[in-house]
Structures are given as structure tokens and as C-alpha cells.
């Protein structure tokens, strides 16, 4: 199978530029080909649509759109798709489903509790199909699937809010992925692009009542709280569509700028573009 090549091999400089699959990047033999490239007739071509990056002699193309590729320690949000024996399969927006082992979760009743056979029979009482989990990547399996764990009080089942799906490359890895915004909304920025926006519930409340970790019931949410959650969710959505990095700062900037508009107008073309430009200008100013 030969690929269509739309440019004849020629001397091409490597500047920061956007390429499409099949674009000749360079024919200088000094360069090595990295991710997102292939070589043919001593020329390096791009195999994806993205931005050319060079580190010393290594040329790679960073794709504009990609699936999530996990790294150990990543904080992610996933959706349970299947309950299997001693494990859950989790959709993590990656090439294959992640796995959450029964031994990698905190069972109610404290860390000291031993896992018994009855726990295996009642796995659905912890996580059932469709549930959203807040988890951390623990390790890889041999086939590259991610193994997750929720062995911390802040991880577990997500409730009281709504999910926003974004491009994974827009959510940078950072020190903290759980933010309580000044507007009184909790945001979990999953590195895999799944972002959970919910009503703020204080951590001490959950710690005091271990039952809440696996609860399906929402707390009462008032109309005002609903509006703020919807506003933040729409802000994240518009940042995503206009390809702006999604961090707690950019969300706060978008939220502040959005206050002049009603929530349902945020996703109309004109308002979204105006807000995104506003956020980008403020981010640049800060940097």
C-alpha cells in the first residue's frame, strides 16, 4: 500500500508549522524520525495532521486531535462500561478500555478491612455500568491497557453534576486536578479529557460518612447552583471547541467574562468566539 504524497521531496526547513498527512517535512539525512512521521526515499513525511516539533535531531509531529494516552500518576475521569470478574472495565477516552481492579478500590469500612468473597458478589453496589469514577492511573498492563486505582478519599464515584467531554490534549497535567472554583463549583479536570462539573460538597462531609463514597443519590441542588454549574460547563465546552487550554485559570477567566451573557447564549457562535478571544488575551497577559 503506497500513500499519496502531495509534495515532491525537496529541501524543506523545519519551522513551527502545521502539516497534513503526507506532507514532506525534511530530506536532510541528519534528522531522525519521531512520532507521527514516516520516511520514504530518505525523506521524512508527516503521518498525521498536526504541528511539527523538533528536539535536537528528532523530528516529530504533535497531532491536533488524538486519543488519550495514559501515563502513570495521571488523574482521570472514567465511565464504567462492564463489570467483569474481580474488575471493572472503564471507558477512559483512550484506544482501549482501562481496568479498575476490585483490589484497587477502597472498600467501605476503612482501609483495614479485608476483602472477602461477598465483596466479589456485590461489586455492582460499588460501581455499576454507567457510573463515573474519579481515579488515578496506577500502572500499565502488558497490552498497554491502563490499570486504575481509587485508593484515596478524594477519588471514587462522581455525583451532583454533569460531564463535559473535551479534547484530551487540551487538559495539561498539573499539580492539582481537583479545583473548587470561587463561584462555588467543583471541577475535576480528567487528563483524559473527561471533565466533571459539580456542586461543591466539602471534603469533611464525605470523610465523616464513608457511605457517601459509593452513593448514587444527588444532594439537593438549588436552581441558582444549577445555573452556575451550567455556566461553568458551557464555558468549558466553548474553550474546548475553540481549542483553548483548559485549566482552572482559563475556566475562571471564561466564567468571569461570561457573566455578561445568559447561560444559554454562551454556546452561540458569536458569544463563544468573543469569550475565547477574551480568555486567550488574558492568559497571554498573565504569561
Amino acid at each position, binding site marked *: 500500500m503506497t500513500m499519496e504524497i502531495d509534495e515532491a521531496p525537496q529541501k524543506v526547513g523545519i519551522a513551527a508549522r502545521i502539516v497534513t498527512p503526507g506532507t514532506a517535512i525534511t530530506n536532510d539525512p541528519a534528522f531522525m524520525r519521531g512520532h507521527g512521521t514516516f520516511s520514504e526515499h530518505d525523506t521524512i513525511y508527516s503521518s498525521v495532521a498536526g504541528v511539527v516539533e523538533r528536539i535536537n535531531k528528532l523530528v516529530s509531529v504533535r497531532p491536533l486531535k488524538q486519543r488519550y494516552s495514559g501515563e502513570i500518576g495521571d488523574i482521570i475521569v472514567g465511565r464504567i462500561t462492564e463489570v467483569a470478574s474481580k474488575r471493572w472495565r472503564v471507558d477512559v477516552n483512550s484506544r482501549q478500555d482501562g481496568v479498575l481492579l476490585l483490589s484497587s478500590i477502597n472498600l467501605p469500612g476503612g482501609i483495614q478491612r479485608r476483602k472477602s468473597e461477598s465483596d466479589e458478589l456485590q461489586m455492582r453496589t460499588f460501581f455499576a455500568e454507567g457510573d*463515573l469514577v474519579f481515579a488515578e492511573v496506577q500502572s500499565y498492563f502488558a497490552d498497554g491497557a491502563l490499570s486504575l486505582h481509587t485508593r484515596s478519599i478524594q477519588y471514587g464515584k462522581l455525583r451532583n453534576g454533569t460531564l463535559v467531554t473535551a479534547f484530551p490534549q487540551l487538559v495539561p497535567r498539573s499539580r492539582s486536578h481537583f479545583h473548587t472554583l470561587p463561584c462555588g463549583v467543583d471541577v475535576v479536570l480528567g487528563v483524559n479529557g473527561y471533565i466533571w462539573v459539580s456542586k461543591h460538597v466539602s471534603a469533611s462531609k464525605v470523610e465523616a460518612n464513608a457511605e457517601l463514597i459509593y452513593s*448514587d*443519590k*444527588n444532594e439537593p441542588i438549588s*436552581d441558582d447552583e444549577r445555573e452556575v454549574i*451550567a455556566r461553568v460547563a458551557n464555558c468549558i465546552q466553548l474553550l474546548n*471547541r*475553540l481549542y483553548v487550554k483548559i485549566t482552572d485559570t482559563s475556566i475562571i477567566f471564561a466564567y468571569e467574562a461570561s457573566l455578561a451573557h445568559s447561560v444559554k447564549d454562551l*454556546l*452561540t457562535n458569536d458569544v463563544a468566539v468573543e469569550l475565547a478571544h477574551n480568555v486567550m488575551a488574558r492568559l497571554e497577559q498573565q504569561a
Partner: protein
Amino acid sequence: MTSLLLSPAEQDYIIRGVESGFRADGRGSLDRREVSLRTGMISQANGSARCRIGNLGVGTDVLVGVKAEVNTWAPGEPEDLGSIVCNVECSPSAAQEFEGRGAEEINVELTQLLDRILNGPQSGLDLKKLCIIPKQAYWVLHIDALVLDVKGSIVDTLVWATRAALMSTSLPRVVVETIADEMGNMQAEFDVVDDPDDLTPLEGAKNLPISVTFSQIGKRYVVDASEQEEAVTQARLTVAVSPAMEICAIQKGGMFRGFPPSLLTEILETAQRIAREELTKFDIHYAQAKLHLSSQAEEPSTGSTFLVQF
């Protein structure tokens, strides 16, 4: 209809939101997402339109083409009427569940619904006008719709696109002559004028109805349900309302349960009320689409370029 998986907490959040009149994306119960409409996208067709309902370039996307053909009358068919043949197809690229034979059921449902709205005196189209010579020849309008993307509320997008496609449809002129044959009998003959500039717009297309689909969620109902909302929809009702504010067709969908009678009468009244606003909105979008067509006729109609209308 959708295979979208939601957690019990998400479902509860959506249902409570609808019941308090504030939906997950900030819309009220009767608000529609952004609509973009284009006409004249298929040059080979007599009329065509593409409609997308959704925000920031993601949404339900339907392409409709209308092709007119001359058919010879066969015994048993109505003597002085033309006919309309609908066909709706959901593209497997629109959603995973449409792959293989998965789209068959919904194709039939949507085809039947479109047929129910368009075929019959309630559609506003005068089928008599589509007859060329009684008991001899008539026009058949083939309406082919392709669902390109699904993000909730397929039915309304389909009806919007079909309405725009029929409004932009024009038929070639037909000359009917009566000549006497050797026996002295008078015989009618017709000739289709093959001139791309000599076209007449389809009569009565302005009287076509518009549809409003209501989804019952919890104890209340919404218009233009999103993908997530459709996952918790218990019952769905499509009401087609003509510009004269008459209800032309009703179809219920969703297998989970029916509507309580009180809610049903409320829905029918609401349908008539908001159909007026929807029609005004449609006219604005259609006028814009026409304007776009005449000003940028040479622009290639590429796919869903981001944020550009199409």
C-alpha cells in the same frame, strides 16, 4: 434510540433540571439550540437543503435532496394526482448503533413519519398540481434524506431540512399539447422543457408544516432534547403544525411509556403556540440561506468546516 450510558446521578441531575425548568446546558424547556440552514447544496437535484441543529458546529445534521421524475400512469393509481416518495437513511458514520443493520428500524420510523407529514391533503402541497395529464403522466417527487450526524432531536432537524428542500425545489416547465391522431381522436401529449433557466417553483411549499418534538423527562417535557436528555426520555411526541396553525400530524415515539392525558393536551396547545415562533425563525434562516446561495454561488460546499455554517 441512543446507546449512551449515563450514571444514576447524571440521570437524576438531568431529570431534576428539566422539572425545575433549567436544563443542563442552561436552556429553558422550550428553547432550541442553534440552527444552521443551507439550500441548493446538491446541483443535480431539483431542490436540496442541509440543516444542522446544535451548538458550535456539533449537532444533528441532515441532508435532503428532492428529485422530480415523470412517471407514466398505471391502472389502479389515482387518476389526477402526483405523488411523493420519501426515504430516510441514517448514515453509519453518524452513530455507532447505526452500523450494520442497526439503522433499519429508525430508517423506517423516520420515513414513515415524513410520509405521514407530507403525503396527504394536510401537507399543504397540492398533489393535483403534480399531475401532468390525467391517466397518463404525473410527477413523482423523490425526497431522499441522509442523517449525517446525531446529537439528539433527529425528527425536527429532518423536517426543517425537508421543508427547506421542498421550498427550494423547482420543476422544469411542461408543455401539454392536444393533437388529433389519424383517427381524428384528440390526444394529449407533453414535453418537458429542458432549459435550466425555465423552472417553476413547487407550488404550495410555503404551506408545508413544521414539526415540534416533545420529550417527556420526569414529570415535564422539553423541546429539542440533547443526546443526554434523549437517554432519559420516557416518551416522545412529534407534532406537525401548518402555517395556518393547524395540527397536521402526530407521531409518538419512545417505547418506555405513554403520556398522561393532561400532559398531552398541554403539549398540543404548546405545540401550536411555539410553532408560530418556529416558523418565523425558519423563515429568517431560509431567507439567509437563499441570500448566501446567491452571493456565494461559486463557493465549494465542503463538509462541516468548523464554525463556518457548513
